């Protein structure tokens, strides 16, 4: 995929749409791995993945706040918002694919790629030039500059940060023309290892971006951020290294308490579950359909919440419990005709049934 450098408010809004898409795109893979674990087994690993998933939800909300602050209109209900897995990340990292897979070493390796630290410095070096992959997931963008890709999520956000600065320099406070009532504040958003930031000016926008990049990928190379929080990349790495990081540790050499992982205490869910895996009418198909509808309802609710109704995030909590329960039920079921493979939810967001 390609995005041009940010030159206009529309460009910035485009990036922020992609940012929301990007943050969301990580959640179904994380949740699938999480829910594939046997209950009560792998408590340490469960907590590690759960926290990262929760923080991605914070990042999604922070991206929505920034987009709202610059006059944009968040939309999670569009058909293209949810990727078809396997997919490439919407920021153009196309050297790996992300799927909804069972918890395994390979899955964690993919998660490490998602959260890999930024390597590049300033300006153009954060882009890598590669041939476009046919499988790349493309948001609709003007491709003024072709074949530029971000190496990491951190670099993608760095471009947003610089774009914001440039536009703020040109336009002054006029950049932040959004209605403050559309901001999600601490009354309606909690969890995520950091406070939600209401974005109303350049400094709050920068603060929101800082939370996203520091929590995720530790832009700047540290394993802990300013608040002493461990970056996602290193959280996942703990699962492969079998040990917790503690303050003072060097990257790659955690010295904290052992972290037990049982790679076998996992339901063997079908990779990249899709609706056409469930063509036989019956209870399993009904359950998968019910899940996708619930997921669609949830995304619709989030869209409304990010469009001036932040109070709707309270019932959205109940939606999330519902989604978890439906997913867990599906994952307990073997796939008909496929011995050794279990069913898995499809994060497609089917439209609700129209009631006449």
């Amino acid at each position, binding site marked *: 995929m390609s995005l041009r450098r940010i030159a206009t408010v529309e460009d910035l809004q485009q990036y922020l749409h992609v940012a929301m898409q990007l943050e969301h795109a990580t959640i179904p893979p994380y949740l699938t791995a999480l829910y594939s674990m046997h209950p009560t087994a792998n408590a340490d690993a469960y907590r590690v993945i759960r926290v990262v998933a929760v923080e991605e939800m914070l990042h999604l909300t922070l991206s929505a706040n920034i987009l709202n602050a610059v006059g944009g209109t968040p939309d999670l209900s569009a058909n293209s918002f949810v990727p078809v897995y396997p997919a490439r990340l919407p920021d153009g990292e196309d050297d790996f694919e992300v799927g909804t897979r069972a918890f395994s070493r390979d899955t964690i390796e993919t998660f490490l790629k998602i959260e890999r630290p930024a390597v590049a410095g300033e300006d153009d070096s954060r882009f890598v030039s590669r041939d476009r992959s046919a499988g790349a997931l493309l948001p609709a963008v003007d491709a003024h500059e072709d074949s530029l890709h971000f190496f990491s999520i951190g670099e993608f956000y760095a471009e947003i940060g610089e774009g914001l600065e440039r536009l703020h320099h040109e336009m002054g406070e006029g950049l932040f023309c959004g209605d403050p009532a559309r901001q999600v504040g601490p009354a309606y958003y*909690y969890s995520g290892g950091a406070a939600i930031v209401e974005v109303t000016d350049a400094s709050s926008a920068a603060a929101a971006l800082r939370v996203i990049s520091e929590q995720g990928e530790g832009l700047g190379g540290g394993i802990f951020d300013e608040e002493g929080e461990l970056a996602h990349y290193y959280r996942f790495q703990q699962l492969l290294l079998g040990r917790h990081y503690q303050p003072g540790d060097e990257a790659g050499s955690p010295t904290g308490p052992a972290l037990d992982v049982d790679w076998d205490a996992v339901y063997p869910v079908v990779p990249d579950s899709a609706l056409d895996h469930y063509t036989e009418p019956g209870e399993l198909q009904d359950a998968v359909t019910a899940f996708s509808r619930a997921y669609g309802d949830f995304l619709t609710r989030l869209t409304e919440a990010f469009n001036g109704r932040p109070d709707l995030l309270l019932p959205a909590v109940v939606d999330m419990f519902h989604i978890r329960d439906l997913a867990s039920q599906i994952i307990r079921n073997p796939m008909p005709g496929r011995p050794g493979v279990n069913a898995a939810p499809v994060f497609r967001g089917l439209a609700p049934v129209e009631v006449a």
Partner: protein
Amino acid sequence: MPAPIDHAAAARTDYDVLVVGSGVSGAIIARSLAERGLQVLIVEAGPGEELSVAEYETHLTRFYGAAAKDNNSAYEVNPNAPMPRSPDVRRLQAGHPDSTSYLIQNGPYEMDSTYTRVLGGTTMHWEGKALRMLPEDFQMRTRFGQGRDWPIAYDDLELYYQQAERELGVSADVADQTFYGITFPPDYVFPMHSLPQSYLDTIIARDLDGTVVQLEETERTILVRPTAQSRNSIPNPAYDGGKGYVPVGAVSTHQVDQGDRCQGNINCVPLCPVQAKYSARKTLSFGVRTGRVDILTQTVASQVHVGADGQVSHVDYQAYGSTTSPEHVTGSLRATTYVLAANPVENARLLLASGLPSSSGLVGRNLMDHAYLLTWGLLPEVAGTMRGSQCTSGIEDLRSGDFRTRHAAMRVSIHNDGWSWPTGSPYTDLIELVDDANAYGTALRRRVADRISRQLMLSFMIDLPPEPSNRITVDGRYVDALGNLRPVLSYSLPDYTMDAVAVSRRVSRQLFQRLGVEDRTHYDPLDPGFVSHQGDGYVIRGGNHWSGTHIMGTASHDSVVDSHQRSWDHQNLYLVGSGSMPSIGTSNTTLTLAALSFRTADHIVSELTTRPSVTIEG
């Protein structure tokens, strides 16, 4: 261990303060003192290796797997530091004490109250109600000719109530909590907004608000109010002069990010799955972070020694390595000041076992606990019972008034967990429907939902005055696995309280009638806690609100501690917790004992920092 300290190192260290017990009182005092520069050692008799989510979840897993889900079912049986468990309580035969479980029941009333001996103390099973006492509760003798007065008044505690509400993370709105003399400073707000009332609450309020109840000459109009609770809700941005409040979520060593808000799980007792409910582990973790609090767990304080000067000189301990073996090592710990924060039963037990009944002879006496009368029935409509948290509303209108000269006051809680307390619902409902009604499949699911979602249970929490004959003693015949004397309980329910039990049953009938509830209340004469009064029988349950065993007063001849919870007899010894309370009124005791802990911490700091210092001329 929460802090890297071993017994040998602790024995070599000159601590400013030794705290016995890691529950809410001990934790608050330790944190508060450490934040002001004092060095504190906490010894906890029960187990606890680290302040981590992983450890918390071992308790949670044990609870989920337990067949009987009593309030200590999350904790392993530990003969080295045993604790009362409600399923252990048996119906007593007159004149035959029951010594089969840790707490020896001497009767005549058998008490099913418990406390918890693990890191974090009884906040590891409390429900989380955070109620201030009424101003009139502090003057029971003066106002109503009953019980005892406190040496301090509501106004003396008000500031400390505020500190307790911060520490315990209380969610409530001032307008809802301003009643029957309770006052707040003009701009005060609670740290977090009130938790939403349950759907069940709204149904009850719809039908009960405005009902008039007659208590002697006092006429009261019922208003269902949200309950102040120590569980996380939406923070109030106006808190602390506009600085706001950041909810304290799960105590975690590895940044597990949960518990910032109550999720509505129904098993608040014993454990909130996400730690949205306060436990003393939260306060302990802040204390440990100061670098000035050390904690030794599996360390039983076995003897308090007093020197010739009347001051406590040292405390002996027994440290055991495993809960499955009585093997242990012994030693002594020294500090400038000693704080016993081991709960009213254990505080009294330790003092009596140490030969320190106090010059008043009142250690162990004046034991109080709320008497609970439970009434239950089926609502005429589906009310969504079992959606948590456990209690979100109550009735405060029976707590105050001149009727208190004649009978005790009571407070009513509306239970979102249905009949679970009196009948063991929903598990017992399921078993009955499957085994007796032969229901299965869709019909079973429908019947479970229909039966449970209409359940209503009201608990009447009834005041009980201090009586010297209600007491904890020790007896050389009864020792635990480490040879420590076990507590012996002698207890009866005074007529002042039993009269209010009868009134509560009458009021319950009136409220059920108004609600159209099918009354299913039944008191079985074979059940523990069955008491007859004026021809009627009731099952009275304990409230786990043990109090009074080292009662506070104005003089050493008729009380054990002064208003700062300092022992009259030993100037460097503080006995803290609800054991100091001269009355319990109709408030769950935790918020008040937390407020007292802050007041005591202030006093200890002032005592320890105003000692004359020696200056060496150079």
